[in-house]
């Protein structure tokens, strides 16, 4: 099953800052029975402590039958290991900026993001946090606007995360 090796290599590859591959590339390798083959591969990977995550926009797709050619697939470690290349402050800032981006419909200007972080940090710290988040692929900068990067949607189920945070705050109690 040479194709499996190829798919795993592709799933764990990095193309610049872009991680993950679209389903269309999987279809090109597996052909018509791609759904079954992908499900089999996922099952085998789970034994290695890995999992294939499918993301449509900001949303996770749990059902393999709901995958579309544009859906992006990522290979993630199955269990959270409580480690990250980001500091806690950067992670907190990331959560806040992501919430604002989602609420604004997909994008906010970099200046706005800096203004949001200025409530807690100096200008230079806020700028450096944003640069770090862009460098790590958690945010994407396009024409002066910040969007949610592929790495964030792959690593975190955003809907679940925000609902959890809101549940803990007073809004949903």
């Amino acid at each position: 099953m040479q194709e499996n090796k190829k798919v795993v290599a592709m799933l764990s590859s990095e193309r610049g800052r872009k991680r993950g591959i679209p389903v269309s590339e999987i279809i090109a390798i597996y052909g018509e029975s791609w759904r079954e083959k992908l499900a089999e591969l996922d099952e085998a990977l789970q034994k290695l402590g890995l999992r294939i995550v499918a993301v449509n926009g900001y949303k996770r797709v749990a059902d393999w039958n709901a995958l579309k050619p544009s859906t992006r697939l990522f290979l993630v470690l199955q269990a959270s290991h409580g480690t990250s290349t980001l500091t806690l402050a950067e992670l907190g800032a990331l959560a806040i900026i992501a919430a604002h981006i989602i609420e604004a419909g997909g994008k906010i200007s970099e200046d706005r993001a800096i203004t949001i972080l200025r409530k807690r940090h100096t200008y230079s710290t806020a700028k450096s946090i944003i640069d770090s988040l862009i460098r790590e692929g958690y945010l994407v900068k396009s024409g002066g606007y910040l969007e949610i990067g592929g790495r964030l949607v792959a690593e975190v189920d955003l809907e679940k995360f925000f609902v959890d945070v809101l549940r803990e705050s007073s809004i949903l109690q």
Partner: protein
Amino acid sequence: MRKASFISLLAKLTGERGSLTLRIIDVLDQMPEGISITQLSSKVGSPQPSVSRAIKRLIEVGLVEVKRARDRGKSFTIVRLTNAGETLALILSYADLLFSLYEKGENPILHHVKHLDLNEDVEEYKQHLDRITLKGRFALENLISLAARILRHEIDPFDLDLDSYIELLKEYHDIWKSKEDLLMDAEALLKAVKVLKAQRERLFHELKLPRGFASVIEETGENKLGKKLLSHMSPVFTPNTPIYQGLAKATAQLWLAPTAHVPKKPKTAERASIELDLEDARRMGVVDSKKFEEMLASLLTELRDKTSSSPIEYSEWILAPTFIETVNRAYLTSFLVKRGLATLRPGGDGKLLISPGSAEKPRVVLTSVTYELWVEEMLRCKKIRK
């Protein structure tokens, strides 16, 4: 003569793009008192050099004339249509109309023309048509600018009512005759498609979250949010993830048997050995020292529980349901041994035993955890359970 023929004739006469010339004539026709070249170029929406070139050609063929004018003590040049130019403008306005009436009679686009007596009230009809065209252009320009703002993410995609947008495009579509108007119509349609796409994307990305949730999230402490986010993270796996490099290679060699889900043994590959100590891991930000100490403490407690009666076999101790967890346990155990919190010593049958506590004489024990060994160990455990 059809309008298209006029455009090509004008292009031949002036050597310029027929569409630009037509637009210039249209604008000059609306300005009988004349207009400066700067104003003209802004009205036709083309750069001044192109407009000047076109005007020069029109002057040469006698359709446009130049006059000097004076305003507030300043002298400047204005251009206006000659008599021949005005006639041409009139013909341009009516060419299509006359032909369509003559040929079709019942043209629904221009049905209102039937009520006009062209011979007697040509001027009235011309003004009527101009009014409709101008109104249409104004409406379309507004729509295009609104759509452009949406595409620049300045306003919400749903601020534009696409149904009425399309209705408006339909209403004016049949009136457009000039190339510029048709291009503007096409641009408006293209913008409508892009706005529709933006609306679809907006719906697509819409998470089921209450309005104003961003401000609630913002109120939560940054560190608390950071910890929470960290607990929801499943790190993306790539071969460049330093601590998981061995696993990455094992994964890349994954070979699924067509009939069973048990992975075949990967081919032996030459692996570059990488040694990482805790300092390296910390420097790379892979491990958090506080978390690491917690993990060591919990592992030590587990070791003490399991070896309360007698030492256990090392391979059994590090074995976990997944290969990655096995590697992690071996990695953490090496720290327990290094700090003298656990001891490794040879047992019978070449087995290696582990127990808590420090060894009397420190010794170096080399162990290896490979994917092949892990699979073998897992299979052995399954057999024992059976």
